């Protein structure tokens, strides 16, 4: 409750600002010239455009949010948790009454590029238009053509469950001034075509920043911290830093490691789990090798990261290190190896694994509690799995073994407490 109160205080000036800016009308949305509109309308029925749109919608992972767990693909209904309340994803099948059946491409472009609904209403940024604004008009047209080609599904839109004042869409005017700049991706002529393709996919359609960047108290992406990792709000997982250079979350990852993880769900350096396993299963495993390679080239160009200044000069182990070591030998070493080295093609190494050492410890704690399978992909159709340890180990044991793996071999991460384990033991899984 305390935390909710704090959100409130922060929101008030923003709300006031929003009201002040209300008269400014936000970003201008110009309709396309008639000739362009005619060409675009024709393209909507072109099978080649539709096929390209299907690929783009897949790598944009639209279905992940716009499909309820037991629902029809793209028919909406999945409730997306945010710190401000839950927002249900709408139906984007071409149903006339409940979907996008009556939408023109200009309407779609307004949503994707400008973050505005068909009536000009400001859309909640849980729809990642902060990233999608970088998508080219051509690609947006192909995605729209594909969505329009789907069988219409009738599924009325659920009401958002946002708390006041976030329930007022006008409060978004101020938010947009702070965090949203519409604009298609601009290639960097100094870089290769491959790099630019990778940057376009990562920053735009792939919307990697939406999870892999820290958000501030108003849910905005912190500037200049792109892809440096962040806690995913309201989801209870940590999306790690994506730099492969010294100090980066993926330090030491080769281009092939990145391609492997995105294509198969695992690499010699780590395995996708939690929300990233969903991303791999539903989206990245379907990317072409050329696109995967481009993403890897771009990520490999991210700069080295400076370690936090408060890192202690002399490192000492947590008090429960010995207990953790015993538990590790008993429950973990068979698969992950006595030196945390893992087993190729089956179990990820824990030594140097960012999922183990990320700043919060959430990922290690929850992976130990929940276990589970690596994502089943075309390249790895029968993945190995990890037992859930929640039924076997109590909070103190899980904290001890978490601290052990975070501080053994080359790992030098901070400690977690039994109380932290208690919190995540009961965190919702979806």
């Amino acid at each position, binding site marked *: 409750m305390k935390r909710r109160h704090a959100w409130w205080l922060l929101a008030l000036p923003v709300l006031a600002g929003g009201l002040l800016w209300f008269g400014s009308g936000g970003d201008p949305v110009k309709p396309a010239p008639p000739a362009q509109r005619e060409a675009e309308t024709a393209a909507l029925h072109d099978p080649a455009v539709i096929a390209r749109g299907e690929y783009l919608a897949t790598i944009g992972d639209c279905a992940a949010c716009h499909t309820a767990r037991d629902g029809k693909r793209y028919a909406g209904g999945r409730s997306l948790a945010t710190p401000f309340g839950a927002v249900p994803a709408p139906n984007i099948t071409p149903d006339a009454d409940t979907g996008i059946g009556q939408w023109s491409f200009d309407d779609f472009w307004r949503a994707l590029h400008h973050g505005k609904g068909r009536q000009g209403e400001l859309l909640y940024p849980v729809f990642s238009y902060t990233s999608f604004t970088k998508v080219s008009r051509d690609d947006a047209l192909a995605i729209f053509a594909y969505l329009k080609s789907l069988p219409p599904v009738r599924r009325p839109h659920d009401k958002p469950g946002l708390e006041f004042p976030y329930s007022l869409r006008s409060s978004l005017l101020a938010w947009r001034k702070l965090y949203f700049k519409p604009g298609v991706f601009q290639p960097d002529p100094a870089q290769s075509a491959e790099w630019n393709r990778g940057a376009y996919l990562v920053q735009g359609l792939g919307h990697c920043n939406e999870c892999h960047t820290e958000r501030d108290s108003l849910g905005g992406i912190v500037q200049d911290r792109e892809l440096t990792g962040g806690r995913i709000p309201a989801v209870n997982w940590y999306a790690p830093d994506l730099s492969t250079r010294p100090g980066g979350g993926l330090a030491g990852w080769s281009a092939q490691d990145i391609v492997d993880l995105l294509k198969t769900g695992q690499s010699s350096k780590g395995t996708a789990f939690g929300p990233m396993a969903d991303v791999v299963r539903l989206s990245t495993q379907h990317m072409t090798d050329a696109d995967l390679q481009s993403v890897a080239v771009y990520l490999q160009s991210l700069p080295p990261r400076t370690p936090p200044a408060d890192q202690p000069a002399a490192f000492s182990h947590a008090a429960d290190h010995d207990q953790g070591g015993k538990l590790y030998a008993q429950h973990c070493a068979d698969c992950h190896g006595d030196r945390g080295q893992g087993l190729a093609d089956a179990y990820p190494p824990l030594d140097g694994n960012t999922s183990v050492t990320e700043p919060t410890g959430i990922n290690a704690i929850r992976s130990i509690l929940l276990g*589970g399978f690596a994502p089943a992909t075309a390249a790895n159709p029968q*993945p190995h*799995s990890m037992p859930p340890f929640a039924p076997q180990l109590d909070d103190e044991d899980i904290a001890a073994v978490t601290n052990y793996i975070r501080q053994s071999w080359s790992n030098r991460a901070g400690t977690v407490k039994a109380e932290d384990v208690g919190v995540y033991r009961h965190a919702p899984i979806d």
Partner: protein
Amino acid sequence: MNSPFFRPMLRAAVMLCAFGVYAVAVAQDTTTSLPDDFEQRVAACTSCHGAHGAGTPDNALVPRLAGKPAGYLLQQLEYFQTGQRRHAPMEYVVRQLSPAYLRQIAGYFAQQEVPFDHLPVPAVSTEVMRRGEQLALRGDSTRGVPSCVSCHGDKLTGVQPMMPGLAGLSYDYLSVQLASWRTRSRAADGPYCMGVVANRMRESDLQAVAAWLASQPAPDDMRPVPASEHTEPLPGWCVMGDSGVTP
């Protein structure tokens, strides 16, 4: 159309069609080869459900999987994926699995023939045990409750392809499942028989039947009987409409 035979026959036909689709789907994919280390791959399953899915004396709430019909196991895995059956740890574990891998996992556990350990049953009176036996073997026509054997097989080892066996399940697990059926935290696509049956039983009946079932010696042959060998006619009133309400 109102002949006394028509409705039960129609229902039976609908159920057979539904089961047939499952049987074909299951048969198709369990034939693809499993890697040698399949048991190792599914460690997330066996750490709770026991080696080869035999069940475990450590946790009476986790059911045995070995030898249950593949169609039934697949259906439950799918229900955990869609959220139709709720149990957070299971929902998380099955989340990343493809339809093909789900079928292989269901097929794998269906093929396992392993003995099981009986788990202790709470001490109940002879009277309660007798009531449990009555419900399990003969049902209670005054409450519209069919016997367990009428659907789950004469020896309670289940019926192919969809009906799970009850032999070898613990008192704790059976009690929790009966309660879950009553509150719809366990559900089926319809007919919603078990939900209706559980709601027709008295609270004390749930305990009685769970105690009797859990205390039975294991039959020599634990395999579910083939559908054709199961000749017990389903009582007309047992199969319910999709809504779960008696038609």
